[in-house]
């Protein structure tokens, strides 16, 4: 018995005998072909792309990235919208738009835990992080020899165009047409809203698990920005925190004429709102102006913010969008 244990221990020790500190692995970049086919004109090597990311780090790519791993749903949406969908090889757990993104390999992301193993196994030449990812994660991936670009959250729609340009540069896509069309759509909404004289009071519900203190968008959020730009008055905008809880009393006092249900994806519908006690006196409940809404259109800092703006404007001023 003792002999068996001894031999087993020895074997196990031998197994780990090769342990030693790891040397950092260097990433393999796509090799530039040196043998040019006879019919091709000899091309100059592609110019390197050097950008400074949101953390102040310098990121250098020798050629546009062909294997991108996206660490945030907003990044996935940006990549697909600029036409780089085929260059994406992995995405985080929550990337669900567009439909093709769901078919890509997932690298984790719930509760802030990403599988660095899965990311490394995909052999990416660029990892696109967002503000929702921690600097620690960026450092981890950097230490593993991967190229990471940290895309800072935009604060306005115009800054979002800037992010589209950055990702366009990183993946080798021209985004001028996309940006022009987005600008045109936003300008169309702005034009119509400029003629508005009355801005309805709007209550945007993010979460009402506690119906006496629901969460809403406060100042300095895209929700607040888009509601205002779409010709509404966000009652949450008077509060201090960006994602505050607003008391039911405050809602009743402000008496919004429109309620937007950002939690409709979680099963909340206008009938469940009407059934809440204490909500019956609110004008929006009395005249039935309770609208389900896809919260992703105002919370993900990507091109779909323009969709969000248009949809909100149609909700607030339907007569202008016939």
């Amino acid at each position: 018995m003792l002999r068996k244990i001894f031999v087993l221990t020895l074997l196990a020790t031998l197994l780990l005998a090769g342990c030693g500190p790891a040397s950092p692995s260097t990433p393999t970049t796509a090799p530039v072909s040196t043998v040019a086919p006879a019919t091709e004109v000899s091309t100059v090597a592609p110019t390197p792309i050097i950008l400074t990311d949101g953390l102040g780090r310098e990121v250098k790519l020798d050629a546009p990235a062909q294997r991108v791993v996206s660490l945030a749903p907003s990044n996935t949406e940006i990549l697909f919208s600029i036409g780089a969908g085929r260059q994406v090889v992995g995405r985080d757990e929550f990337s669900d738009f567009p439909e093709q993104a769901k078919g890509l390999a997932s690298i984790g992301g719930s509760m802030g835990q990403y599988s660095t193993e899965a990311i490394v196994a995909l052999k990416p030449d660029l990892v696109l992080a967002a503000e929702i990812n921690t600097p620690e994660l960026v450092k981890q991936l950097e230490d593993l020899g991967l190229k990471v670009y940290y895309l800072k959250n935009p604060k306005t729609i115009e800054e979002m165009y800037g992010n589209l340009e950055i990702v366009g540069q990183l993946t080798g896509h021209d985004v001028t047409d996309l940006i022009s069309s987005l600008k045109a759509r936003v300008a169309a909404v702005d034009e119509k809203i400029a003629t508005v004289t009355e801005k309805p009071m709007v209550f945007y519900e993010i979460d009402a698990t506690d119906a006496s203190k629901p969460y809403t968008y406060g100042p300095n959020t895209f929700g607040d920005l888009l509601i205002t730009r779409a010709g509404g008055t966000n009652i949450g905008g008077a509060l201090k925190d960006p994602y505050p809880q607003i008391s039911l009393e405050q809602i009743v006092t402000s008496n919004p004429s429109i309620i937007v249900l950002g939690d409709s994806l979680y099963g909340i519908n206008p009938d469940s709102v009407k059934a809440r006690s204490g909500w019956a006196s609110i004008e929006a409940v009395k005249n039935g102006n309770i609208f389900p809404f896809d919260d992703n259109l105002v919370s993900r800092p990507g091109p779909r913010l323009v969709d969000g703006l248009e949809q909100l404007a149609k909700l607030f001023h339907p007569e202008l969008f016939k």
Partner: protein
Amino acid sequence: MKFRSYLFSLLALVLVLTLSLAIGSVFLSPSELWAALTGHGSQTSSAILWSIRLPRTVLIALTGMALSGSGAAYQGLFRNPLADPFLIGVASGAGLGAVIAMSVKWPYSFWGLMAIPMSAFAAALITVFIVYSLARVGKTIPTTNLILAGVAFSSFATSLTSFLMLRSTGEVRRALGWLLGGASQSGWTAILAIAPYLFIGLGILIFSGHAMNLLQFGDDQAQQLGLNVTRTKTILLISSSLATAAAVAFSGIIGFVGLIVPHVMRLWWGADYRRLIPLSIISGGTALLLSDVIARVILAPQEIPVGIVTALAGAPFFLWVLRRAKNQGYW
């Protein structure tokens, strides 16, 4: 046989170490693993094995050892089966320190990234110092006072942490991930940073077995048997708090390991602290590593925070062990 307990525990640790290197969210076949181990592996499998799994395994093992060792020490010090390393506020202090640090936008540099573990560590030690000072009565430190002061201060720190998290803008997710526990900083930096504190703290504990056995008789009896009770308690408190604070600073708050592992060791091998402390240390590493393997694999490629797995798996396991030993008065 005198060293049977050590042999079994070490064997279990080695087994789970191997398991932790072999299993992960990406499947590597035994031949790929062997190739990577001997240096002939593909770049991906070598990177996964050496740069991801090995540092993480070592960090988790060290964390488990620290938490278990101090858990056993606290149980001996307070003579209370419910004592765990977070009893006098190390966890809540560290959490508060970390969340406060997270509300500042540190520059992306070596020291910027070390800011959060460092403030967690500092805050944990400050908390222990405050609790110790509050509990002191003249030249003695009554254990009841320590527990009461610790619980009160813990509640205060925890509610302050929750409040800060509510008021913060983008850091809630980061704070929550940290509080739930898990190796947030990988790589050898974290290991090098905590190793000295662990060596000092756990080293002192390993050699305090005899003193802790004496403490079990009660403060007065131990004093009469020749032990300088106040000095011993202070040294034990400092060393376990050092080890716990270092472990928590990088791995967040992982509950249950410090509470359950010493009890299991006690049930299996008896309550002699000269043996209990080293065994708890070894088995703590094993237990946390096993939980981490489960956390990595159960919903791959998603990874669950380790703290959740230790609670979910640890509780039933402990109840099972307790049932088997219920006829023996082990405490």
